[in-house]
């Protein structure tokens, strides 16, 4: 099954509840008026992309097509193109992702150990995303060690241990309550010793406004940087697709302490569209690297802006 179908399947359930089919909105030959623009605004806002990004699109349509008769295809193209533009990288950065290589979004260390740090607020799906990512790495022939750095939440270590057993990879754990930075250190140590390709470090969920916990995270980041030069090679922020405008604050505050390199957008299989990644991309140039499209361990896909936008407004079968 191709990626597009998988994504579509993931989003399929969504369609029955919330139709984002823009074709319903505009009718061929009608004059584009304020009422229609307002409805479009509503649909865009409901993806959580926020007032600024929405106003940009609506404004563009008003400017280009306002008061004129509608050609549905060109209007839709404009909407999609604007969105794609908003999601595209700035500064001519080459962030190409290759369709056939699911690991292409990752910045893997050419020689030696690649360290991946995963952070996020509580309950966004960090541990599950790590399991999925591990699965992806293992199935493309990389060896890896997991590090259970969430020593705070009850049974979080057990949760990741269960995943490691299912995936058949090594895991470094310490008893609950241990300083997470020391667990991360021990994990890197073990990974270097075992000579594996990758190490993925789980961290406890924390609200981005909790000063002390954010400092703790900063310490983890610093410690692994001291242990492995250039680490972490990837510092991924897991975002829940249902998150609203608070996602911006999450991205900002987490980037401040762990210099995020990308986002894993989890839980995209519900009715939420995850539009919050649009303002995050615009304000901070932080790319989405993977999307979680289901509860299965294989349901993690590399993100592609074109597909994302197409699927968001896909007309469906």
């Amino acid at each position, binding site marked *: 099954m191709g990626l597009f179908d998988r994504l579509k399947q993931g989003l399929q*359930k*969504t369609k*029955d*509840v*919330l139709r984002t089919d823009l074709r319903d909105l505009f009718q061929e030959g009608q004059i584009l008026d304020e009422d229609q623009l307002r409805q479009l*605004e*509503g649909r865009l*806002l*409901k*993806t*959580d992309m*926020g*007032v600024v990004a929405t106003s940009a699109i609506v404004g563009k349509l008003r400017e280009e097509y306002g008061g004129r008769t509608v050609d549905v295809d060109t209007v839709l193209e404009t909407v999609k193109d604007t969105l794609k533009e908003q999601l595209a990288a700035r500064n001519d950065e080459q962030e190409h992702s290759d369709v056939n290589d699911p690991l292409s979004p990752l910045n893997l260390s050419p020689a030696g150990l690649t360290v991946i740090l995963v952070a996020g*607020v*509580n*309950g*966004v*799906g960090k541990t599950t995303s790590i399991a999925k990512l591990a699965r992806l790495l293992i199935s493309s022939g990389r060896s890896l060690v997991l590090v259970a750095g969430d020593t*705070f*939440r*009850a*049974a*979080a270590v*057990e*949760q990741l*241990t*269960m*995943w490691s057993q299912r995936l058949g990879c090594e895991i470094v754990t310490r008893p609950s309550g241990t300083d997470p930075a020391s667990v991360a250190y021990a994990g890197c140590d073990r990974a270097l010793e075992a000579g594996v390709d990758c190490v993925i470090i789980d961290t406890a969920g924390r*609200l*981005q*406004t*909790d*000063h002390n916990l954010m400092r703790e995270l900063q310490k983890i980041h610093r410690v692994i940087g001291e242990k492995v030069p250039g680490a972490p090679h990837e510092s991924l922020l897991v975002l*829940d*697709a*249902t*998150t*609203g*405008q*608070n*996602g911006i*604050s999450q991205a900002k505050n987490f980037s401040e302490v762990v210099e995020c390199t990308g986002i894993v957008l989890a*839980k995209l*299989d*519900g*009715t*939420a*569209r995850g*539009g*919050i990644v649009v303002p995050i991309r615009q304000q901070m140039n932080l790319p989405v690297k993977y999307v979680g499209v289901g509860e299965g361990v294989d349901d993690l896909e590399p993100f592609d802006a074109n597909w994302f936008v197409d699927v968001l407004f896909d007309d469906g079968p």
Partner: protein
Amino acid sequence: MFEGITKGLKGALSFIERSRLTESNIHEGLGQVREALLEADVNFDVANDFIDRVSVQAVGDRVLKSIRPSEQIVGIVHQELVELMGPVDASLPIQRDGLTVLMLCGLQGSGKTTTCGKLARMLKEQGHLPMLVAADLQRPAAIDQLQVIAEQIAVPCYTEPATSTPLSVCQNGLKEAKRNPEIGVVILDTAGRLHVDDELMGELEQLDRRIQPHQVLLVCDAMTGQDAVNSAKAFNDALEVDGVILTKLDGDTRGGAALSVKAVTGVPIKFIGVGEQLDRLEEFRPEGMADRILGMGDVVGLVQRAQEQIDTDEALAQQQKMMDGKFTLEDFRKQMRMMRKMGPMREIMKMIPGVGGMVDDNPDMENPEEDLRRIEGMIDSMTPHERNNPERIDRSRRNRIAKGSGNPPSEVNNLLKQFDAMSGMMQQMAGMGVKDRMRAVKEMSEGGMLDPGAQVRKEKTRSKRGSVDRDQVRNRKRQQRKNARKARKRNRR
């Protein structure tokens, strides 16, 4: 808590303060209010309805003719916010005899398992014995998590291996609970599920039918965006939810979900989760929330929290001491500890009207706890004799205290000076009426209470005549001016 939305609304409403009210600038201003609501994740349709309702009232004669139109509009926005989120009933109907069954449901990662623990802790404090039932067989280690939580609060927990089915876990759990007559409440922790997953929703409906819980509570992440409406609606359609518990409200989320969920489903919000610890569950009060949204502070919430944590007798004794001028460093330390029990300082200060903004504007305020801890350390390093007689601390004692607490001697000096000034002021304040006291607090905060370098000054007392009440002075001066005017008039004739 709701600072985001508060900030937005404050900005939006400030236009009204500036200009005279006309119909067109009401619309413009309400447009800004709408934008603020949308930025706060209030659902698009809910926000539009809200604005429509407010604008109908605002444009009416009542406002334009009222003496203070701006206040009137703030009043309307406030009232509508309360109406949108209320009325609320934060009680849980606990059966007098027999078991009460509560079922928690929600999306993945909304905080169900933690909330189970919080609810159980709350019920236990109210004198019931709750039992937790781990019906989440999906997520790895969810059962372990619930067991750990149950241990922490010392309540029974019923579990079965993950190979069982949720229904049989619940049924067996109920049987188990009935065997122990002490258990009054059973809380079912169900697996998180997507509202569009027909299979799992069907399973939940089946649970609801067969177990027939007395209350179905939906756990909802306050950071949810526009989608909050869809999931809440789907759960409500499937289960007839009795109440909502909003979680993760301790972050900087704008919490618009609170408005939308209530507006769309009509299900009341019963509790809010404001921290990861198991005692961080509060009753939801729409008035307090609306006050917060409009930047009026949440005094009721503060008082409630204080009542929970502060020993009333102790507090009264302290107050008496203050008034008598016998307030010592020992008492000061006790007070600081009580305050710390109430929760993080930042959080508390935000609940005080007028101080909320100050906290946000003051990056130095980043960690008031640290200062408190340092001060406590210094007091700890004193002997009991020194604590009770701070004036006895001379240079050598001061150096010893500084060394003992790891601070420079100047810090100790500062502390002593501040304490001296403070106890003087407290004595003054104890003699004041409520109004004067409020003014004194305000002066204190404007005078840089939050600036670590600033000092609280002791008001100079006139040596011979004793301290002078300001109001008295003002009245006397006023009288003198009046008399002088009269005298001038008389002389002209």
